[in-house]
């Protein structure tokens, strides 16, 4: 069963087609590495899947529904380019706020659990503006995962993370895969992504260059995919 079904999706910025006839399905429980060079359209595609932007043409089904319905959004976790947490609020207030928006049964308990899991319990009442970069990143990871989403959309998740945040994210992604969550992550870090991924989608200038399983060749030589299916 497809967790994400994308059929003939186009997106324009002005006259420029950022996405051209994108078509692929993502099976439930799989982990897809969304690859492509800068400006290929990975972030645009992730935004459309997350319901943050609308496609100009084409059909898109997320978890058998529309990404803008409340029921579907409750099942999506998004970790975008920005960390998506408020500087003027404490770590606890940030997580409680997002837990309330996610309609968690006990937002305080959920926030406390995720502060513990992200190693931020000791700084729970410290304002985010006083956090180090690594602490902010761990808080952002907690924000994206706190409602145990069925579909995780991660945009360059490993970029600029410190060691602790990378370890946390890898553990959470492994746990998410173990419970059957679907993961789509765009990245430039081929080795980390390909180790986690079960499938690969390569985007070349807004079009799908490759869509299929992650193969042994890709794992042995991350540049193989670009040489064989990348833009000329």
């Amino acid at each position, binding site marked *: 069963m497809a967790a994400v079904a994308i059929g003939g999706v186009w997106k324009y910025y002005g006259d420029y087609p950022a996405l051209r006839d994108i078509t692929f399905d993502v099976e439930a429980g799989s982990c897809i590495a969304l690859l492509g060079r800068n400006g290929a359209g990975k972030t645009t595609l992730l935004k459309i899947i997350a319901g943050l932007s609308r496609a100009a043409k084409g059909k898109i089904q997320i978890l058998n529904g529309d990404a803008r319905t409340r029921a579907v959004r*409750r099942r999506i976790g998004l970790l*975008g380019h920005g960390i998506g*947490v*408020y500087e*003027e609020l404490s770590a606890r207030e940030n997580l409680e706020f997002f837990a*309330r928006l*996610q309609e968690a049964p006990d937002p305080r308990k959920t926030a406390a659990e995720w502060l513990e899991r992200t190693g931020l319990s000791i700084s729970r009442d410290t304002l985010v503006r006083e956090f180090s970069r690594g602490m902010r990143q761990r808080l952002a990871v907690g924000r994206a995962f706190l409602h145990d989403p069925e579909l995780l959309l991660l945009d360059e998740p490993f970029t600029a993370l410190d060691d602790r945040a990378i370890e946390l994210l890898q553990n959470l992604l492994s746990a998410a895969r173990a419970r059957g969550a679907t993961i789509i992550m765009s990245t430039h870090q081929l080795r980390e992504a390909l180790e986690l991924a079960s499938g690969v989608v390569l985007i070349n200038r807004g079009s799908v260059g490759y869509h299929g399983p992650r193969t042994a060749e890709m794992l042995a030589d991350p540049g193989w995919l670009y040489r064989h299916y990348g833009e000329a």
Partner: protein
Amino acid sequence: MRVLNAAWVVARKDLRAELRTKETLNASLSFALVILLLFSFILDPDSQTMRAMSGGLLWLVFMFAGALILNRSFARELPNDCLEALIASPASGAELFLGKCVASFILLLVVEVICLPVFGIFYNVRWTRQTGLLIAVLLLGGWALTVIGTLFSALTVNLRLRELMLPTLIYPFLVPALMAAIQLTNVLIGGDTLERDDYIWFRVLIGFDVIFSLLGLALAESVFVG
């Protein structure tokens, strides 16, 4: 109930952040008080003309101070891409819009409550003669400014010149509500009894608030997602 709960969660977050920094409140309040002070040097508080235009002056102050509050409404979501996280959450566009409106409205009311006595002192105006009705006008006029301002604040949040664009866009839309609020404030501050004709302005304000609130709620999702 769910809509109100989610809206209150958003509003409470905005108010909590504002109470920590006080940047919007300090800016709008000091701006409003400076305008009131400067105009008090220009206008003779004892003149009949002054009494006739006092409502207009008061509402211009609220409009300018309100624009500063409304500019920050969505701009505070820009650092760290918080707006993306907010739109990706299960809260609907209408809930986010309502929450933002409530937070801005409360901040605007704080400005109004502080400016009114100052206005009374500087301009020698006894504004307490019909307090109940005056409060109703401040609430209705304030909400009119808030709904229009919040909608356009969401539309202009990604523009480089949003501080300039927001007032330019909202003031023309606000003309009917502004006229009604000024007329009613003039009568109430002047100590006159509201005539039958004056109640038309109340109806204009209420109608304006209802229509633009519904319009804002209906359009919010399209405004956020595009």
